[in-house]
């Protein structure tokens, strides 16, 4: 992977993609009639939300993989998805209220979608706290994997919340029924932004996995040094 698509090239592609997405958001997508300019928050808000949900799905996959095979790579994958997913989920929780305040007149309300997204963020926090505070690495990996699997219940409910219940949150742009949907140029801007975020997510995951490999290497070398000192 590193030979075909080196990290530096990956970073350049991500950067260019993000610039294209920014151009489409601000200069290509039309201004929404009632909300005006502030509606452009939508593109980063929705793209971050979809990426955060995907990240938790990857935690779920990595956690199952770790509990099944006990491979360090699966654990590192889940841990990386948690750390990067936490960043994207934080973006959702910050950009949401910044969009809500001028449109709804309030920063926050405890409706189903908002509450479940907050619960998702808490799940990311719980996962990462377990990794930091449980000293035994094997025990920490098992406990975090359990949180990763059980917590996944929140993801489909969060995704479906605006379809199942009447909420303050706007109706979905995909299969939202009568009156929902987007202008085709808005769709282009949204999908390009999501693509750029997925590319960024993949880049950050790669960097995290490299970090995890370095940690393992440091551990191995330390053990080697200790054994050579004892000999």
């Amino acid at each position, binding site marked *: 992977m590193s030979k075909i698509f080196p990290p530096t090239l990956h970073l350049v592609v991500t950067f260019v993609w993000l610039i294209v997405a920014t151009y489409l958001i601000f200069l290509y997508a039309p201004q929404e009639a009632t909300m005006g300019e502030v509606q452009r928050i939508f593109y980063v808000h929705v793209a971050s939300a979809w990426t955060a949900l995907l990240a938790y799905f990857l935690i779920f996959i990595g956690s199952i993989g770790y509990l099944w095979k006990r491979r360090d790579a699966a654990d590192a994958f889940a841990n990386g998805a948690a750390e990067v997913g936490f960043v994207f989920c934080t973006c959702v929780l910050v950009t949401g209220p910044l969009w809500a305040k001028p449109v709804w007149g309030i920063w926050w309300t405890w409706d189903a979608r908002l509450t479940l997204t907050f619960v998702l963020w808490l799940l990311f926090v719980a996962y990462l706290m377990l990794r930091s505070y449980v000293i035994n690495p094997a025990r920490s990996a098992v406990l975090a994997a359990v949180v990763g699997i059980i917590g996944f219940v929140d993801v489909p409910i969060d995704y479906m919340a605006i379809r199942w219940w009447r909420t303050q949150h706007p109706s979905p742009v995909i299969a939202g029924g009568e009156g929902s949907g987007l202008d085709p140029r808005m769709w282009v801007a949204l999908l390009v932004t999501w693509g750029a975020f997925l590319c960024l997510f993949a880049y950050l995951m790669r960097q995290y996995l490299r970090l995890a490999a*370095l940690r393992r290497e440091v551990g191995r070398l330390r053990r080697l040094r200790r054994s050579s000192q004892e000999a």
Partner: protein
Amino acid sequence: MNGYLVVAYGFVWGIFTFYAWVIHTRQQKLEKEVEDLKRALSTK
């Protein structure tokens, strides 16, 4: 430009840049430790 829009985009680009920088710094620290350990082992 709308203030809420500026804050939202500023936060998003800021947090991504900050996290990428944090990962890069952590990597550099570990790479240095690997080199130091390898040097210490080879001199034994």
